[in-house]
């Protein structure tokens, strides 16, 4: 019986150890550094972006600063491989995703890596996936300074923001400084847009913001002889204590 109890206690201990920290997503912040999707030259000399996301319960604030883009509209999306309430960790697409070998990774070819659209980072109005192709409500130009707060977070994504991808779409393929509406190649998502309107230009993966890690109290420090100093201090202290004790007794002795 005692053995069983001990085993049960051990199991309980293991469960407690294994229990995930709760509510880690409340008030959490996330970051991503975006880089060019292979082969999809978004502009010159090279495009990049930094993204910050702060989660405040039901909504989030998203800031995107992107440079080196083509002068076309830029659909901004959160993408994710979402199955029920589970989100898979993955990376951004590489050139190997160009399965039709046409020299670019189009928006559908990248989906095995970044999945579907889960949030549309529009400048106004709806932010759901339904607005994924609302080109008129996305920023445009060679750089993007986007910031919007109060963006609703779909329930299944609330604990999983750190696994989402941020994709900046829109590439000026022909370099004519504008969206070429009559481009022969059409978007793999809609015939209403030219291919350059939805090509993924930049992609990055969100991770939880880091922080300061305080993992030591100096009790074995050697780099500055802290241990020696501590030991020495202890000796000095002990010596002083001995001296203090001896002095009265010495005084006593003389009386």
């Amino acid at each position, binding site marked *: 019986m005692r053995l069983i109890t001990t085993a049960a206690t051990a199991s309980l201990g293991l469960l407690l150890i294994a229990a*995930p920290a709760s509510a880690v997503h409340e008030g959490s912040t996330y970051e991503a550094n975006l880089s060019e999707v292979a082969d999809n030259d978004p502009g010159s000399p090279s495009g990049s972006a930094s993204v910050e996301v702060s989660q405040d319960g039901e909504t989030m604030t998203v800031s995107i600063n992107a440079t080196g883009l083509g002068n076309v509209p830029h659909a901004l999306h959160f993408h994710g491989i979402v199955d029920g309430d589970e989100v898979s960790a993955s990376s951004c697409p590489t050139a190997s995703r160009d399965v039709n070998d046409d020299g670019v990774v189009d928006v559908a070819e990248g989906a095995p890596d970044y999945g*579907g659209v889960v949030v549309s980072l529009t400048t106004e109005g709806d932010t759901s996936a339904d607005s994924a192709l609302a080109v008129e409500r996305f920023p445009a130009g060679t750089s993007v300074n986007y910031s919007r707060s109060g963006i609703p977070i779909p329930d299944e994504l609330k604990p999983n923001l750190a696994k989402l991808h941020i994709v900046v779409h829109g590439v000026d393929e022909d370099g004519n400084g504008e969206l070429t509406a009559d481009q022969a190649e059409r978007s793999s998502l809609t015939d209403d847009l030219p291919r350059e309107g939805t090509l993924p230009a930049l992609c990055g993966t969100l991770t939880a913001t880091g922080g*300061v*890690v*305080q993992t030591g109290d100096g009790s*074995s420090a050697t780099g500055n002889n802290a241990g020696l100093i501590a030991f020495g201090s202890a000796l000095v202290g002990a010596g002083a204590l001995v001296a203090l004790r001896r002095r009265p007794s010495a005084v006593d002795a003389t009386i």
Partner: protein
Amino acid sequence: MTPTARRILPIALLLLGVGMVAAGLGVFSGTNRLSINDSPAPPLGRAAGVDAPAPSPSPAPAADGTSTAPVSLAELADIGRASAASLPRGITPVRIEVPTIGVDADVVTLGRKNAEEIEVPHTAEQAGWYTPSRRPGEIGPAIIAGHVDLDGGPAVFHRLRELAAGDTIIVHGDDGKQVTFVVATKGQYPKDGLPDNVFGFDGARPELRLITCGGVFNHATGHYEDNVVVYAHQEL
């Protein structure tokens, strides 16, 4: 994209998705084989997903032969879900072994202490997994921290700085599986100046960062000035 390519794309995507579901890409098969030591057949990634929805683009060539039906947003999401079966899922870590430096320690879970600091283990003997980071074995960086010293003596990661490229780190999951990482490099940085690739996404494979303290101990603050970071990854 040429008209021919446009016609081929949906089919290619379908084949790609089906191929990944059925067999897993070679690279991920390699992951499973190399990364799980002494582990029975089930791979890290979900078993080839009979239940995973296959992408279902239904190409309908237009009469003029120059156009095919675009991939809908729902189909885009399906393509992602189909590939999930081949992605490594990682483990919830409960123990870490670093043979080179004699570490065999329990792993607890760590959240954030406050806006600036992440939690650290309460004891000298334990290491801790920062739960907002990736699960070890998932694509992306998993963070495991431990003390260099505590409560009067050396702690679990006291010898972390001795690790060198090629050393192995074995992380055990609560499901009995384990993931083996290989040390790539290490660094020592002021605590407020950690490089982006410590916590940030880096590379396209499962990564591990072991973090402890180092450098000069500041008696005024009661903390070390630096962090020592060991960068490791799962061999793919």
